[in-house]
């Protein structure tokens, strides 16, 4: 069964109790929420994601709901609960679905230590993974969305889950978070981009999520082997430029983008050495997607 098999009232009922067991790649999250915007967001963005039985195992139990007290009614707010605790401050009620998404990112990055986790977008072509680590504001998500709409399989917009033994990157296909000008850029880039509602005045500005392409969800069980490490940077007005990065520098940038390097210690060092050994490392600056995409097509084709 997938989310789209549920009628809206069934989805809302499952979210109310006992919780929707949503599978994203290898991770199952039990999600509860009485908030219509959360149900709507899940209905849009996770329509093709598999559901697990209600009594089945879940890696995480989360609950997105209004706080107790007056803030249920006046200047309404929303809280993200993880295993019964609320690790974050409340946000305005209108940010309920983004809060679910940000909370799920945190659940994975703070808990899935079977993986070395990088803050990076990951896409796949021919079994080979393109790993794009970058800080917020670098244009990573915009580029990731465009590539995912152009034949690359989306593994993740935010989290590279690297198995330290096999070195495979595991998929956790979830909505791509777009901010501010990127929203219209992607909307006009492709008619296939399915965007959810705009959410204004978040800490990141205006946010909208893009539904992950169908193939990325259906092939979420397929890992990929790192082949390219690309550090993207949006540079207004610049021509697309791909330049090699010294491997020692690339290694340190990967360390900087790792969520749990310290947890793994020597194993993380060895894992990233293997990633850098096995892949080509580049910096990539761009301002126009139309120029950027052929560069990545060239990478995939070995040009």
């Amino acid at each position, binding site marked *: 069964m997938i989310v789209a098999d549920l009628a809206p009232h069934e989805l809302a009922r499952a979210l109310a109790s006992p919780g929707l067991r949503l599978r994203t790649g290898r991770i199952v999250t039990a999600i509860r929420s009485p908030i219509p915007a959360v149900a709507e967001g899940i209905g849009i963005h996770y329509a093709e994601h598999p559901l697990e039985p209600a009594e089945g195992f879940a890696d995480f139990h989360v609950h997105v709901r209004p706080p107790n007290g007056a803030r249920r009614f006046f200047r309404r707010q929303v809280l993200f609960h993880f295993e019964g605790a609320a690790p974050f401050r409340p946000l305005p009620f209108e940010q309920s679905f983004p809060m679910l998404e940000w909370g799920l990112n945190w659940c994975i990055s703070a808990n899935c230590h079977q993986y070395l986790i990088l803050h990076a977008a990951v896409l796949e072509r021919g079994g080979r993974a393109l790993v794009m680590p970058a800080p917020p504001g670098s244009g990573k998500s915009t580029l990731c969305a465009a590539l995912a709409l152009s034949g690359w399989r989306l593994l993740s917009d935010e989290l590279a889950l690297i198995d330290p033994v096999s070195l495979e990157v595991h998929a956790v296909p979830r909505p791509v978070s777009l901010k501010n000008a990127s929203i219209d850029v992607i909307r006009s880039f492709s008619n296939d981009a399915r965007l959810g509602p705009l959410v204004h005045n978040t800490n990141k500005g205006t946010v909208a999520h893009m539904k992950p392409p169908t193939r990325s969800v259906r092939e979420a069980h397929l890992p990929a082997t790192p082949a390219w490490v690309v550090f993207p940077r949006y540079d207004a007005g610049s021509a697309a430029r791909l330049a090699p990065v010294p*491997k*020692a520098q690339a*290694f340190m940038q990967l*360390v900087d983008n790792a969520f749990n390097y310290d947890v793994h*210690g020597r194993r993380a*060092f*060895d894992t990233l050495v293997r990633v850098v050994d096995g892949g080509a490392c580049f910096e990539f600056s761009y301002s126009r997607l139309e120029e950027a995409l052929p560069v990545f097509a060239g990478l995939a084709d070995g040009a």
Partner: protein
Amino acid sequence: MTVDSVVWRVPPPGAVAWREWDGEAVLYDERTGATHRLGLAAAVVWRTIAEAKSGASHPSIATSLESADLADGETASELAKAIIEDLERLGLVEGK
């Protein structure tokens, strides 16, 4: 003891993992959990000390820098001294 008579050694086997690419190196220190990147000259110094079975002296390290075309004569000697001091401060080499 003169500077030239000090023998420099890297930590015991297993304490520091390292990998070189294109002359630069990255090191992981198991004892501190710290990761370091060494540029071309520092990587030469590190490799010279790490690969010397009974340790390396300042003159031999300076010679390695000269052989790598990274510095000459007195400049190589001063550069070797400065890098050794940095590595020692980080606990990556020790002299006896």
